[in-house]
């Protein structure tokens, strides 16, 4: 009886601990997906306040054209209109959480306004998020242009 009780207690402990950890990870994944959607929309809105929250101070943003921005440079370029994201649709293909770091991989269709004309970009992207101050903050972005369909 005692052995059975001990096993039952151990099982209950393991189940409870693993269950709460999984629940916590699920919540962090959902928070991350929300942060990603918020960030993309803030790009389109050129919303410096939201971007200030969702981007890490140490952000390294490498655009698909090879241009590199710090957090300040990136936000300034949107607010000034130098860079104009007319619209963005995105699809997250993978989210992995490694402790206080998360890797998000996805694709995005971005329409960029330039000199009164718009240009469409099909991108594959990876961004790195860090859990800081009780929220996800994007600390790195890399994107690459997908080959046109005919060349695939």
């Amino acid at each position: 009886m005692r052995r059975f009780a001990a096993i039952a207690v151990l099982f209950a402990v393991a189940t409870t601990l693993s269950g709460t950890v999984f629940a916590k990870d699920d919540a962090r994944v959902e928070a991350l997906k929300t942060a990603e959607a918020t960030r993309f929309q803030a790009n389109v809105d050129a919303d410096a306040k939201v971007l200030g929250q969702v981007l890490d101070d140490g952000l390294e943003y490498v655009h698909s054209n090879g241009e590199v921005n710090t957090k300040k440079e990136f936000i300034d370029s949107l607010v000034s209109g130098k860079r104009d994201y007319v619209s963005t649709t995105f699809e997250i293909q993978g989210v992995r959480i490694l402790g206080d770091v998360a890797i998000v991989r996805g694709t995005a269709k971005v329409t960029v306004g330039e000199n009164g004309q718009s240009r469409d970009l099909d991108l594959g992207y990876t961004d790195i998020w860090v859990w800081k101050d009780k929220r996800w903050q994007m600390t790195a972005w890399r994107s690459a242009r997908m080959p046109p369909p005919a060349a695939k």
Partner: protein
Amino acid sequence: MRALILALLVSLPLAAPAAQSGEKPSPRGDEASARAALQARFDAALRADVPALDRLLADDLEYCGVSATCSTKAQYLESVRNGTRKFKSLVPRVERVTMYADSAVLTGKVYALSIGDGTERQVDAYFLVVLVWRDGRWQMTNQSSTLLQPAPK
């Protein structure tokens, strides 16, 4: 005995959050060892050393190249094994290393001279690498690259 079991069951909701909040940094390698691991990975790629790459790459590797296509570890190793991915030179320049609890993020540039179909091609790119500390060593779990100067669309 019953009292003990009861006490344990009652304390479970308290114990669980305490266990998960204990996110102490794991005893991982330092920045120098992370840099060395990345250099070893590039060196192994240049030698097309599949056994070395197998050890240096995490099983859940995502390798996203400059054409925005991503490979798994098995796909990446096969491309090295069958010669699809071959280099004459591969020179990385690490510009930033950020250490986290049990991972490291390294960014920089890599200057690669690739060989394929009898032709050589210079591929210079920004890289973003995530190393994770597993089984007592650094393993690369993600590499994503962007061309320094992509061809105009």
